[in-house]
């Protein structure tokens, strides 16, 4: 079920960083944000249109002050405490250290032999827009009717009853994920970042304050989809040509709106696609770019400079290791798999040491799934990548490798100030593992989101069952 636009036959076959110095490569700090006129107040400022017409209605569920003691802690920013303690309350991390005093009324959990980490963040998921069951009626991830569909928003496709969310929570310890449109199109539409908490509406899952992403794609998919329809793009050069033409239009659109906001006058016409692209050019929306090959990533980074935007992360960047230096220089992250390889031509040069080589060469790196099964084992994917690196002589500690699962994706999503590491004041998105999470024999034991206990392996009632599964064979079973 990988790489959401493989031909049907292939789809069936597949079924998916201490550190401040090293992290300097990461995208979130907005260093590359282009200057924009829209920030200057003028007669038209704020009169145009709302930028948040479908706001988050997510509210954290209630939790109790919780102290986990005698536990191994990976703090998500490269730090490790053995036999330590973490306290969280009111949905936030309060304190962590070698020992922390239990406030009155706190639930105290003995974490002996266990590991506590920030909740895993998957920057690349199609849960909800390619849900289970994978029937055509539910297939809502690719608006493959034109190469530029920057007008579509993934959140308008996300089905909040996808059973996959529950598997990602209970087997994967995933607390935050970015749902993207597919990669049939050069500009596939807006992504949405959600908390992994079932809700009646997608807005009830939506991560408060997370920036939107724009899904872009290079390479084989757009040129195959549109080339087979006899239209541009049918080549890689066609891909870039259509992208550039579109960015040129977006720049013009943005100029009109900036002028209106500054000077007032006749309100410019709205174009829903151009709203998104102008949002990218103003730095409000982050570019999440599907791109496998090193040479194409290099071109895309120059295209971004040409039009004044920044690529937050390349996804499926199987050849990122070949240009770790360029990625570092551009402050662009690479989101990769551990061992996916060879299923299409542009994945042919994938190697198991991709993450380790990126880390070694100072680039910002992270794991991602793109897969409803892979998302259940991202910790194991990192374990494989870490082992591959160590066998090649690249020594990276377990605690630093945990950044590939939480802090680096949080940075590339623009939410690192809110989640992704166990820093006091951040969201208490926390997983207690029943052993070393880089061992195949370890599973999540408890998962908290904003301090609320939403999974407990020892309590069958703390196991979500989506509407779709209710009353079906195996509802409420361990999955």
């Amino acid at each position, binding site marked *: *079920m990988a790489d959401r636009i*493989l031909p049907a*036959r*292939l789809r*069936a*076959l*597949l*079924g*998916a960083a201490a550190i401040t110095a090293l992290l300097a490569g990461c995208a979130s700090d907005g260093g590359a944000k282009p200057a924009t006129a829209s920030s200057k107040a003028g007669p038209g400022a704020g009169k145009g249109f709302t930028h948040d017409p479908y706001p988050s209605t997510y509210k954290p569920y209630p939790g109790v002050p919780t102290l986990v003691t005698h536990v191994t802690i990976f703090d998500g920013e490269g730090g490790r405490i053995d036999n330590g303690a973490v306290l969280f309350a009111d949905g936030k991390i309060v304190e962590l250290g070698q020992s922390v005093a239990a406030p009155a009324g706190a639930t105290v959990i003995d974490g002996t032999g266990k590991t506590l980490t920030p909740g895993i963040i998957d920057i690349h998921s199609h849960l909800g827009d390619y849900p*289970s*069951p994978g*029937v055509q009626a539910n297939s809502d991830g690719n608006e493959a009717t034109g190469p530029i569909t920057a007008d579509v928003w993934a959140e308008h496709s996300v089905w909040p009853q996808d*059973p996959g969310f529950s*598997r990602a929570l209970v*087997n994967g310890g995933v607390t935050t994920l970015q749902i993207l449109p597919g990669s049939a199109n050069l500009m596939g539409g807006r992504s949405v970042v959600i908390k992994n908490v079932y809700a009646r509406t997608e807005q009830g899952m939506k991560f408060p304050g997370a920036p939107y992403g724009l899904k872009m794609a290079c390479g*084989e998919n757009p040129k195959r989809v549109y080339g087979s329809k006899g239209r541009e793009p049918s080549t890689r050069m066609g891909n870039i040509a259509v992208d550039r033409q579109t960015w040129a239009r977006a720049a013009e659109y943005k100029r009109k709106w900036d002028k209106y906001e500054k000077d007032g006058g006749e309100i410019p016409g709205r174009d829903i696609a151009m709203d998104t692209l102008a949002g990218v050019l103003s730095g409000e929306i982050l570019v999440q770019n599907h791109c496998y090959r090193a040479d194409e990533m290099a071109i895309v980074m120059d295209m971004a400079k040409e039009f004044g935007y920044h690529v937050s992360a390349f996804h499926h960047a199987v050849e990122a*290791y070949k*240009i*770790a*230096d360029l990625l570092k220089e551009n402050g662009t992250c690479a989101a990769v798999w551990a*061992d*996916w*390889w*060879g*299923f*299409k*031509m542009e994945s042919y*040069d994938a*190697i198991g*040491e991709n993450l380790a*080589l990126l880390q070694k*060469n100072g680039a910002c790196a992270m794991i991602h799934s793109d897969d*409803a*099964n892979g998302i*259940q084992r991202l910790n*194991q994917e990192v374990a*494989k990548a*870490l*082992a591959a690196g*160590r*066998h*090649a002589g690249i020594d990276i500690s377990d605690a630093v490798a945990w950044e590939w699962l939480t802090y680096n994706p949080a940075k590339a999503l623009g939410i690192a100030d809110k989640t992704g590491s166990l820093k006091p004041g951040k969201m208490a998105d926390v997983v207690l593992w*029943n052993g070393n999470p*880089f*061992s*195949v*024999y*370890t*599973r999540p034991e408890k998962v908290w989101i904003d301090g609320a206990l939403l999974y407990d*392996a*020892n309590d*069958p009632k703390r196991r979500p069952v989506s509407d*779709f*599964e209710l009353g*079906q*064979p*195996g509802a409420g*079973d*361990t*999955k």
Partner: protein
Amino acid sequence: MKRLLLLSAAFLAAPAAAQSVAITNARLVIGDGSAPIEGGTVIVRDGRVVAAGKAVAVPAGIATVDAGGRWVTPGIVAGFTRMGIVEVDGVDETNDAGARTSPFHAAIDIAPAVNPATSSIPLNRAEGVTRAIVAPDNAGSIFAGQGAVIDLGADRSPITKARAFQFMEYGEGGARAAGGSRPAALIAFRNAIAQARDYARDPAHYADQGKDALLTRADAEALVPVVNGRMPLLVHVERAADMLALIELKRDFPALKLVFVGAGEGWMVARELAAAHVPVIASALADLPESFDQLGATQSNVGRMKAAGVLVGIGTINDDEARQARREKQYAGNLVALTKLPGATGLDWNAAFAAITSAPAEAIGLGDEIGSLKAGRRGDVVIWDGDPLELGTAVAAVYIDGIKQPLRTRQDALRERYMVPQEGALPKAYER
């Protein structure tokens, strides 16, 4: 009839250049579900295991390798793959798994298409996979054709057994291939079996209906060993009710040697599977209702079937099966992890390892040949630097038919070239 017998007789190719080796001082795993033996020895002579265990003396004149207490096991038998017949899935020219417009189906024999130079072979070999069950993909019929068992040795003769089984799609995939429904798939099956029997009765007078045939002459011929039980019939099926319907077929065709592949809802009919002696090559971790055939999917499926007495191995079914058999080790490890999860059923370590070695071999009737280190089996032995199911473990040495194998891959060369990404005094293309 003579020709028929020749065709259906087991064809077991002999290794090209068999070798002998004794591996001593091992944490020795036999692969049959028994516990590891500390300080064990395995002796391979002329390509076959002659002895393995604790008190095994090393015969004079045989090359000896001291494993230094490391894990030594049979090689992994990849339970269901398309290894060796696909280079790049998305590049059709390199993909021999299925033939959309061919008039032939059951008669397709995948063996001659297996290319030992396929890059998935050295890669999986370097990760301890020594044999693979290779199935064709169906297209235009419920019957996909005849699969093979291969070895992953670095030589030109990959076939362990050609025409080792027939592969068939049932459930949603079979219904689609048969024209749109399960009953259509079942009648296609019954009709094919009837025609195969006609053919077997009198091959010379089998009516050749040309393009009007529902089953070509070659297809009818290929199904004869299936009808008479000399060739296992592997059937991809996920839904519990479908498994019962297929077991029901054995009433009419008692010789059928059914093996279920996938079997996502197998736990719901585990007693029936055990009673009917139908082995299963399962997807280990499929736990999503990816289709309405898999509503009951759970990672406990394998453990629950095994507990009910079903012979269960692990395969990669619609799961990167052309290239990622190496993940079966991880999958097996995950089944061990389930034993600590309240309400779940997993496998103990010994059973989990058997599920990726002896169990798939036994499921297709080759348990006497591959999948364990019992005397008489092929000398497929792996030395590991740790627990073979654990994520950080690497392979130290691989022997196939007693021959020590090279472990270098194309990926190794790429990694070495880009250890430092910048170009040096000459372009990267000169670094090798």
